[in-house]
């Protein structure tokens, strides 16, 4: 049992290195054991321009309020754990620098941090990702090949590999899916991330189950729900052209099959 400090908004314990400015971090807090509704809490924290939002959250958690909950693993924009809404836009907290958020003319900077939308919030900034992964699994995101297995690797030309290169970059952070207004309204929509991962195999020359996946995405909750609002493309921390990938799946359904 570690020492339990009372949760506090007092941030005076956070070390303020030279060159740091004090900025206000407004966090949408929610503790299911106490709160009925999420509510905003403000913390004045010292921040260097080179800090990332994740550093600020870690400082608040380590020095002020240990009950602050959020996911974070690699902290280098690869694992996709710390997707959250920063100033209203879905971002990875480990990839957003304080210098890009500073208010102009030396005004007081406020950074708002909220959990991603469309998935049930479990506590503070962390959400239940299961509906997201359920949609991901439903598009069969793995190689399906029939016939005899080759004795060596499954070869592929550079051009064939290039065809789906963009969608191999997905890290399943849920930034895109939780920025999609169609997904907010209807959680049974597959969502951009699942379609991106289907795209990665549909257009892979080594895979033989494109038809199967196209059938899945042709259904009521599939690609036809997409209304090309481009929120997903804007949100993707990996720079994947998500909406373009969805449109390519639509085009495959329209012209390659029917």
């Amino acid at each position, binding site marked *: 049992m570690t020492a339990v400090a009372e949760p506090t908004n007092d941030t005076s314990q956070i070390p303020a290195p030279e060159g740091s400015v004090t900025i206000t971090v407004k966090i949408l807090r929610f503790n299911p054991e106490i709160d009925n509704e999420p509510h905003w809490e403000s913390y004045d924290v010292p921040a260097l321009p080179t800090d990332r939002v994740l550093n600020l959250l870690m400082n608040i958690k380590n020095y002020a309020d240990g009950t602050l909950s959020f996911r974070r693993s690699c902290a280098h924009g690869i694992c996709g754990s710390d997707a959250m809404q920063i100033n209203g836009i879905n971002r990875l907290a480990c990839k957003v620098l304080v210098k890009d958020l500073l208010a102009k003319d030396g005004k007081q900077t406020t950074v708002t941090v909220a959990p991603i939308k469309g998935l049930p919030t479990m506590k503070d900034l962390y959400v239940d990702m299961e509906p997201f992964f359920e949609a991901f699994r439903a598009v069969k995101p793995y190689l399906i090949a029939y016939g005899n297995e080759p004795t060596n690797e499954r070869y592929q030309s550079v051009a064939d590999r290039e065809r789906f290169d963009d969608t191999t970059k997905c890290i399943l952070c849920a930034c895109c899916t939780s920025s999609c207004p169609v997904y907010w309204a209807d959680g049974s929509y597959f969502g951009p991330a699942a379609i991106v991962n289907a795209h990665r195999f549909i257009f892979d020359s080594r895979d033989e189950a494109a038809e199967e996946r196209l059938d*899945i995405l042709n259904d009521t909750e599939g690609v036809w729900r997409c209304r090309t609002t481009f929120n997903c493309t804007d949100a993707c921390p990996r720079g994947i052209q998500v909406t373009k990938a969805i449109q390519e799946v639509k085009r495959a359904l329209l012209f390659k099959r029917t």
Partner: protein
Amino acid sequence: MSESLTLDKPRSPRRPAARRNNFELYSWAFMRISGLALVILVLGHLFIMNILDDGVHRINFAFVAGRWASPFWQFWDLAMLWLAQLHGGNGLRTIIDDYARKDTTRFWLKMLLYVAMAVILVLGTLVIFTFDPNITA
């Protein structure tokens, strides 16, 4: 909370199998094609009714009767009626799906929509085909 996390078979698919049904595809394609057709039909209609000759001032019973004597204008108006109703109705269907929070609200709003569509379609079609220019007032 823990109850929702303990699943009997956590990896088993929770969605019904794909239905191999192209309804959503056709409805999506219909929206694009009818949208294009409506741009021509509606802009043409507005131009004839409001700008050409004396515009809206020359429209009276005789003017409408004269137009509907020709099968071309009958077809034009019929196409405009059907495409606009189906295009708008399909659009509203998606909007209701998005914004209705309860299944009962969704159901009744859709019923209202479908009944309104049916009434307007039947009434409009009836008028276009059974229009009698010699009707006595």
